[in-house]
């Protein structure tokens, strides 16, 4: 009998005898100085390398993201969407001609006030102190409440076993199984060893800037101070930490 099944049975027994008083949500994140990690995407620079998929490929390879052909069951961490859909949903007419029909990157916004973590019934997704909206694939029960709560469509559910759709799995990062939700994690496994997110590293145009908003003089702070930027659906109060520099 597997340990998980034993834990399951033990829990079932406990729950049956006593109205189960669950342990408090234990989701402390790493200590240290408080950081506010964020990403800025320079839309113009990105457009200069029209049709480029370097960031998408780098991310999906690094994280064993499956390439599932069936659109209904697709899993994606970072991808391109037409401008009209990603940023100018209600105002396509105001887009300059150059932007119409062109594509822009979308990914998890690592919101400062994320609705997805609020609704998660197990604490399998939570906001770390450094601002990363993290996922614990071990804890996810696959209820998809977070998918319903995300206003950006950034979360993917594994409707089928993803392994067969990962062409060359790397052992540096786990795949996922059927029945769990996944998304971009700002490459927390790379941040942990002092590296930048894979997409940022891979961008040939230097269009993506990643850093700490609270650190004075950081590259991202400077860029956001100098240029005009927008965020996706600010009216929802989620305070995305992915900025689009126009």
């Amino acid at each position: 009998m597997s340990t998980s099944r034993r834990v399951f049975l033990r829990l079932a027994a406990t729950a049956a005898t006593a109205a189960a008083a669950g342990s408090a949500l234990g989701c402390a994140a790493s200590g240290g100085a408080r950081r506010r990690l964020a990403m800025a995407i320079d839309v113009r620079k990105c457009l200069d390398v029209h049709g480029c998929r370097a960031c998408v490929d780098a991310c999906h390879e690094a994280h064993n993201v499956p390439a599932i052909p069936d659109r209904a069951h697709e899993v994606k961490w970072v991808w391109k969407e037409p401008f009209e859909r990603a940023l100018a949903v209600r105002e396509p007419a105001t887009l300059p001609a150059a932007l119409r029909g062109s594509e822009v990157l979308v990914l998890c916004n690592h919101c400062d006030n994320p609705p997805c973590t609020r609704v998660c019934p197990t604490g399998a997704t939570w906001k770390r102190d450094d601002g990363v909206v993290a996922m614990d694939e071990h804890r996810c029960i696959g209820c998809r409440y977070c998918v319903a709560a995300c206003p950006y469509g950034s979360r993917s559910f594994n409707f089928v076993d993803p392994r067969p759709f990962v062409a060359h799995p790397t052992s540096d990062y786990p795949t996922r199984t059927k029945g769990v939700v996944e998304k971009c994690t700002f490459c927390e496994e790379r941040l942990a060893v002092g590296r930048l997110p894979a997409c940022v590293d891979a961008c040939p145009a230097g269009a993506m800037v990643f850093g700490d908003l609270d650190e004075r003089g950081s590259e991202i702070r400077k860029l956001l101070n100098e240029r005009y930027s927008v965020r996706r659906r600010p009216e929802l109060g989620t305070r995305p930490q992915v900025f689009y520099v126009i």
Partner: protein
Amino acid sequence: MRRPTLLVAGLAAFVALATWPVWHALAGPRPTAPELARPVGATECVAPTDYMRASHMKLLVEWRDRVVRDGVRAYTDRHGRVVTMSLSKTCIGACHTDKTKFCDRCHDYTGVKPTCWDCHVVPPVPAPPALAARGEVR
């Protein structure tokens, strides 16, 4: 109690069925303990062997929670050795080379099926020359 014989027969059948796995196992051939391929030169895992044998899953779960939930990736064992807490980088990869000749042999023997490898990717086994260089042949 109208049919005592039927009752006794029914009870006997039930007991026989319920204890069937025990009889089945006793009747079968004695399984021999598996031979495990251990890293050559190493004397101890990150904890004493007895502890590892009995509680490696607890340690792994502890590692898992430290890494995923607390963002801590380094583990210092009782001899001061620092390792990365990782299934596919440390347990298999840096220490054991072939999961099938260590973890799997014992798990098959004990009938344990960890689900970890549904996600965690087993690193490729190094080619025989590389293994020989490390002193591992089995």
